[in-house]
């Protein structure tokens, strides 16, 4: 599975182009300054002062959120503490556990290692976005059927990783499933049931596709 690749400046694998575009959208909307040194150099504006906010537009689960953020705020912090989308969990805030996994343009990423300004302009999907109203998505359904969790704290992240896997690989092998959730730690050790749930979800989707 693809996890954010981090370069030496701490950026995720989002392309520079999409990043600059997203910031530019924000700048147009609220005439705010640009955010990261690289981007600032390209446009000649000065980086924001401590605590200064910049405007971003975030596309989360199909809704548009226009908001001001501090450049240092992570996507995880914005989702949880600013928007109250608590299904995205917080296990480490340092890219180790995967509890904060979300889809960004369909690819699973750690939201704690993604700055909100970087995610602007991308399609962000959280566990809330995998549901149809109150109805569970196929992966969630499979997780219940196979009892693929214990405490449940790593679970939303696992669900998102399995979702990302199945979107790319609808009929994964056992090794592909292992690989697909290998960026998500589960201290309760529910892995075996998570593998079963991924297989079950693949079946459910196959039936769904007809």
């Amino acid at each position, binding site marked *: 599975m693809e996890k954010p690749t981090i370069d030496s400046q701490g950026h995720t694998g989002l392309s520079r182009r999409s990043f600059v575009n997203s910031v530019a959208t924000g700048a147009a909307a609220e005439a705010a300054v640009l955010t990261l040194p690289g981007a600032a150099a390209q446009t000649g504006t000065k980086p924001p002062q401590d605590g200064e906010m910049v405007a971003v537009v975030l596309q989360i689960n199909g809704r548009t959120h226009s908001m001001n953020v501090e450049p240092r*705020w992570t996507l995880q912090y914005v989702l949880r503490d600013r928007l109250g989308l608590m299904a995205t969990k917080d*296990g480490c805030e340092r890219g180790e*556990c995967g509890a904060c996994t979300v889809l960004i343009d369909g690819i699973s990423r750690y939201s704690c290692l993604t700055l909100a300004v970087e995610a602007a302009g991308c399609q962000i999907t959280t*566990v809330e976005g995998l549901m149809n109203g109150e109805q569970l998505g196929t992966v969630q359904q499979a997780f219940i059927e196979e*009892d693929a969790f214990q405490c449940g704290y790593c679970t939303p992240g696992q669900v998102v990783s399995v979702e990302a896997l199945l979107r790319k690989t609808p009929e994964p092998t056992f090794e592909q499933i292992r690989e697909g959730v290998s960026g998500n730690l589960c201290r309760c050790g529910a892995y075996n049931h998570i593998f079963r749930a991924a297989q079950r979800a693949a079946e459910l989707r196959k039936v769904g596709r007809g």
Partner: protein
Amino acid sequence: MPRIDGYERVSGTAVFPLDVILPNMLYGAILRCPHAHATVKAVDTAKAREMPGVHAVLTDADPEAQIGWFSRPGSAGSGSPALSRLFDPHCRFEGEEVAAVAADSPQQAWDAVRAIRVEYEVLPFVSDMEAALKPGAPDVQEGGNRMGNPRETKRGDVEKGFAEADVVLEETYRTSCDIHTCVEAHGSVVQWDGDRLTVWDTNQGPFPIQAALAGALRMPLSKVRVISSYMGGGFGSKLNLGKYSVIAALMARKAARPVKLFLTREETFLAVGNRPAHIMKLKAGVKKDGTLTALQLTGVGEMGAYPAATAVGYQVGDLYKCPNVRIEETMAYINAGPNRAFRAPGFPQCSWALEQMMDALAEKIGMDPVDLRLKNISTVCQMDNNKPYTSTGLRECLSEGARAFNWKESRSRPKGEGPWVRGVGVAGGMWGSQNGPPATVIVKLYADGSANLNMGAADLGTGTKTVMAMIVAEELGVPMDRIQVENADTGNTQFTSQSGGSKTVYVDSPAVRAAALEVKSSLLDMAAAQLKVPAADLNFKDGEILAETGTQRLALRDLRQLQMQQAVVGVAVRGPVQSDKVVRPFVTHFAEVEVNTRTGEVRVVRMLAAHDSGRVMNLLTYRNQVFGGFIMGLGLATMERRILDPVTGKMANANWHDYKIPTAKDVPAQMTVLPIDLHDTECNTTGTKGIGEPAMIPSAAAIANAFYHATGVRITAAPITPSQVLTLLAERKTKG
């Protein structure tokens, strides 16, 4: 049976304490001592107080922060002065609390923490138990680094036993210090309403937290409400009140606003417990026919900077029949975070030593390791006056497990030419302590036939709520989807002790059953009055009252008294059980490993866990828990280890990149659970004995034995890391 709270957990609607956000809430952060041993000379918070968003700063200079912490060994609750306090200037381990801040945002709180200037006097430290016990080591606590006198347990005469043996072996085994690392970090959200304190806290049972918090803040129990209906993993590390809860409460009072204070991942590695490292010297004697004649264990445990003893000897004294036993245990203070209970405290360590020793003995006398264990089964508790066990499933775990694992055949299969070689191993075990009752449970049946179960127990992810609801369903015939469970809230559920020691189902399920039975008997009394027949002739089944003769039926909606009072309540209190028998779960784990003799990699490819934990209430959650326990044991065996830097005494791997825990890629592809149910009617009224801890007890030892079978090299120090494997394989080559 899928869990009744599955929807909440997979949809993200379950509100864990870390997810609680209150209006006007502040975020707290703690400044911790960066040194292994230091005295705080001065704390300058002037700059922090002026920073944007900061609303409260708390240090040892605040009179309300003078709260004692860590009691002297054996003096808990005696009123004798504590060993330390909330922000004690004498910091005995890296990560001790020095000051705290509450601010509008977490970023502001951390900015302010970083702006606090602290002057430390750095002191000499000791970070290794053997060094700590040597003369001249820096004292971690006054009076030296040995906690009290060694604890000794004795029966028979070990010297006589060794003399009678045909084979005597002696070996020193070591286990490392392991960290719980629950995925939800430790922390609380606190709110004051006048003199009432409400705390959303992630713990293993809110009642002891409520009591400790009320004690620390000198408040009546009735004014402290602790809510922990969901929690993200504990494994023993969330049985205790954390300083963070008290600090949050004091800052919330200062700022007159709610405060959320959760630890960062790094802090959880330093300050909220661990499984202490142990050195276990074990000597064992056996006759040629496999009869054990003597066992002698000398254990030293690495306690950390404050008293928290973990004993490892129990299984040596109780698992196998042995007339001559001597166990001596010591705990040593070092300058590092104190230990806490960690899934089956002491037991996996003991298994690591005892079960590898059994393996070595079997080899020496040319006996199959399964047969050697079968030869030495005891049906009485040798550690408790030879009282009989209510049931002893060890024999069945071993023999049926061996059959299901295909032990004999797997054992004789070729090991491979390399670089990958394979082997299989076995280890037995038992869980030796059961936290007891009391527990109070309320079951309420509504006029429409739906039911409410009100219990204090937390659900750690073990499926407790589901299992308890199943008991109500079983007794009252109410469908599962019409049962609502309220739990783990001191404000509106009933007292029970914490979930720890695999006691929840064992202790609380009989209380649930009794409460449901009380509801039933009240219903029958009402029906008897209405139908004018003796209650003894009536039965309640599937939502209807039936007369014994089968001719008279009464639906709940026609039961006049119930419709008038709208609900029937059954209350059950389970008091301490006095019994002349002993309840013990038993277990045997089998493992198959592959070892790469070129790279030192170890892969566990297959496991089977045979468990006698009494009746299996819910196979789905049971299996999950057993696998989870085995995997935690796999972590202990092959990767987990706290590393303290010898130069600075600081933890070198306080994060999940450097401290490895098992991931999806480390778990065996083939995992099997074999429940052994001997229909124990004496352990309690539900026939259950507890599964949480037994699930992890022998797994590490089974892996170590499989490693030996594969390579012919005995690894006595956990974890079995590739570098250790390569060193030992190379040594064997040179020695020939």
